[in-house]
């Protein structure tokens, strides 16, 4: 159970129904991803200003995700949240 305790604000969390072991957590400090139901976490590099505040997913495709910042910038991932690209 790696990781540090946190008392920080989590703005959004995500888990796909077909891949529930994979978790995403959006904090002010960045985006974190777990592939083992929270046992371990890795920080995901996202090049965007502001915090992510919401996620959207395709119900049949666990790899396809969208996320938004509070300012409305949209990011897309096609690998379940490991990598993100900003929508033009």
């Amino acid at each position, binding site marked *: *159970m*790696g*990781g*540090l*305790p*946190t*008392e*920080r*604000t*989590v*703005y*959004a*969390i*995500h*888990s*796909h*129904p*077909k891949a*529930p*072991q994979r*978790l995403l*957590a*959006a*904090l*002010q*400090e*960045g985006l*974190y991803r*777990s592939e*083992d*139901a*929270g*046992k371990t*976490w890795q*920080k995901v590099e996202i090049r965007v*200003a*502001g*915090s992510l*505040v*919401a*996620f*959207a*997913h*395709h*119900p*049949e*495709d666990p790899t396809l995700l*969208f*996320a*938004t*910042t*509070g*300012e*409305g910038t*949209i990011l*897309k991932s096609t690998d379940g949240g490991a990598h993100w690209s900003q*929508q*033009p």
Partner: protein
Amino acid sequence: MPQCRRGVWVGAIGLVLILAGVGWWAVGGAALWHQARIPTATAGEMPGIGAPMEHVHALVLDHVRNILWRGTHQGLSRSQDEGKTWSKVEVTGEVPSTDFMALAIDPTNPQILYAAGHGLWVVKSTDGGTTWTPKKQGLDGDDVHALAMDPNDPQKLHAWVVDKGLYRTTNGGDVWARVDDGPKVPVTLAPTDVKGLLSVNISTGMGGIYLAAATTNGFFFSAD
């Protein structure tokens, strides 16, 4: 190891242990909540104070029509090009507020959407987001900040009502029932500000799945 008390969110154990069945249970509809640990950036990595959350709060995908729905303090908008461009949605029906802080969409029928926000209570659309109807019976407040839909039962949703607690419906919003106070800060047991709710599709072994909450004091899990 944390103390666990009925009806409050306490503790500091990880989700894996929780999912393994350690100290996670619910009694009489009053869920026991646990705070999960996740890593955070070191002080050197922290970017400082982040941007305030002024506008966008919610995002869902209608996978059938390929529409992204976005909820903001100023209303509802949608995109048909994966978020490149957006158009404001003129909502009709009995909509008490234009503040859309939370959205949920039925994965089996994306024509059915739920929304909630400041002064909005919970509203529901069954025609793809055009017409909305209040679904507030049983809710004790109109300031609803978060929604979570059970992916296995789209009629079952949870809602977070500010200063009132966690509510649940099992009939598509027709009637809501209060579940508990929601997460509380460990040790002090002060209430937390819930930013989002999520149904996690892992069985509790008690007939339901887990419910997670993103809060100003970390994120928490409970048996659904």
